[in-house]
């Protein structure tokens, strides 16, 4: 057995590394660069019932150690994702996690119901944390009761396990996590982006046309690690961690904090080969750390009195 294979609800992963939603489109572009079958899974771009154009440009801005985006959930809509993108992805031996979004509960339910029927969709990722749309999105992600109710509704219709993607823009992440667990979530993915802004000194105006955007990249990693550390001790469902991962070492840090798998977002733009690179490097790192299997590392930072084998990078 490989030291990297992971079983999570609905997901039989060859390895715990997957591109994060919105940073990999529907895989077409990256498929020109490497074989997608080597990935643990793919989190596809958020899908809404109808096609969306998203926000005006500029949609991205660089920040110290990170970037802001305000794409605004641009996507070709449920029908096209179901009839074109997902069937195209079937050529690869890789489970798909379908990120679903909407403005109303009904939107989520509609997308969940249909996408969960696609043969290669092995799990849903409920995006209640998109900061870049006027209605829905993050509103569900900052109110525990709304989050719980939505999770329950989606669970009722979904034919595959449901993961809920949490927003870091909250006072108490544990409260939301526990609410969606009560709502029946099979797992959590965290974190989505932090709400941020950059102002251009040349114009005096925000760089993004949408003014605010979601902060991602290495700068948010400590926030992600903290939240996963807190949440993983208080829920009994697994967490797929993300937020600033740039390397195999970062993946390990997420596991130590409490994650059971890891997703890479922004770094795909910086280094389009980053996912296969990390997957290749992980086994050697595990060996250095004296771990037989990566799952041993999940939550090691809070499982007391178990210090790791001395490891020097």
């Amino acid at each position: 057995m490989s030291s990297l294979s992971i079983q999570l609800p609905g997901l039989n992963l060859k390895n715990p590394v997957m591109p994060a939603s919105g940073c990999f489109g529907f895989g077409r572009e990256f498929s020109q660069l490497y074989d997608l079958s080597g990935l643990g899974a793919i989190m596809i771009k958020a899908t809404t019932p109808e096609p969306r154009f998203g926000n005006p440009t500029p949609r991205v801005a660089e920040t110290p150690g990170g970037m802001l985006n305000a794409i605004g959930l641009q996507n070709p809509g449920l029908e096209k994702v179901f009839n074109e993108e997902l069937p195209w992805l079937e050529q690869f031996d890789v489970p798909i996690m379908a990120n679903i979004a909407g403005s109303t509960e009904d939107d989520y339910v509609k997308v969940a119901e249909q996408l969960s029927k696609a043969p290669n969709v092995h799990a849903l990722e409920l995006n209640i944390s998109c900061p870049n749309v006027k209605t829905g999105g993050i509103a569900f992600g900052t109110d525990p009761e709304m989050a719980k109710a939505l999770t329950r509704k989606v669970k009722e219709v979904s034919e595959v396990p449901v993961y809920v993607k949490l927003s870091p823009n909250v006072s108490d992440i544990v409260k939301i996590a526990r609410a969606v667990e009560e709502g029946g979530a099979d797992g959590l993915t965290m974190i989505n982006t932090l709400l941020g802004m950059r102002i251009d000194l040349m114009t005096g105006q925000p760089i993004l046309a949408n003014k605010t955007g979601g902060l991602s990249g290495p700068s948010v990693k400590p926030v992600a690690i903290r939240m996963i550390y807190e949440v993983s001790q208080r829920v009994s469902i697994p967490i797929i961690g993300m937020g600033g991962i740039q390397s195999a070492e970062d993946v390990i840090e997420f596991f130590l904090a409490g994650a059971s798998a890891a997703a890479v977002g922004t770094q795909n733009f910086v280094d389009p080969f980053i996912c296969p690179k990390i997957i290749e490097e992980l086994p050697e790192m595990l060996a250095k750390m004296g771990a037989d299997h990566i799952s041993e590392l999940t939550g090691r930072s809070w499982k007391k009195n178990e210090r790791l084998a001395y490891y020097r990078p």
Partner: protein
Amino acid sequence: MIRQENCKIVSNRPIADNIFELVLEGELSAEMAQSGQFVHVKVADGFDPLLRRPISIASINDGSFTIIYRRQGKGTSLLADKSIGISVDVLGPLGNGFPADEAKPGQTAVLVGGGVGVPPMYELAKQLARKGVNVISIIGFQSSNAVFYEKELAEFGEVYVATVDGSYGRKGFVTDILDGLEGQADIVFACGPTPMLRAIENGAYAPKTYLSLEERMGCGIGACFACVCHTKDDPQGFSYKKVCSDGPVFQAGEVVI
């Protein structure tokens, strides 16, 4: 095919005020076909700055290629500081460039470049002239000290220069010169600031016009939806083009600029 390669710096020198010409050695030059394609450059290891910088290909050589950039913010300043022999992480070639084949031998192509929109015109002029297309270049700058590649472009045909302050060439904009060439162009190729591209589109100076757009980018390869624009036939709707992978060169009238 898109490749990622550590390309060695062969030369990196100022050619005008804050304008640098950088020659990079790399096998990915063999993948480069069109002017107007671009490379995505990681100017520093680590995350300061984090994102790659898109820069047009100015010249495709055998085993190397040239890019020309303005020292502007953090990224291009770091690039300007790099010396010969150092390696730079380059992703490319990206996007679809100018379709040189649209100009037939014997026809007249007018190439319009504004500021750092000039560089792709050099490779294009080279390709067109090689095929027997009659090349006229019009290049515009702010001021005399910003002018570059006049001589280089002159190898392939007539060159007109405009400067905004009149300190070199003709005072005014590239469109002022275009106006004076009425009827001569069978095809126009242009790259430069958005207002210039709009004026050229509106001016309809030739039966066919190709424009190279600029947009803030994330991935540069079509995966992140950072750089989309509406198509002209559906300006409020859902249809779109990605500047990075469908463009950056579009035919006039194809997308909303």
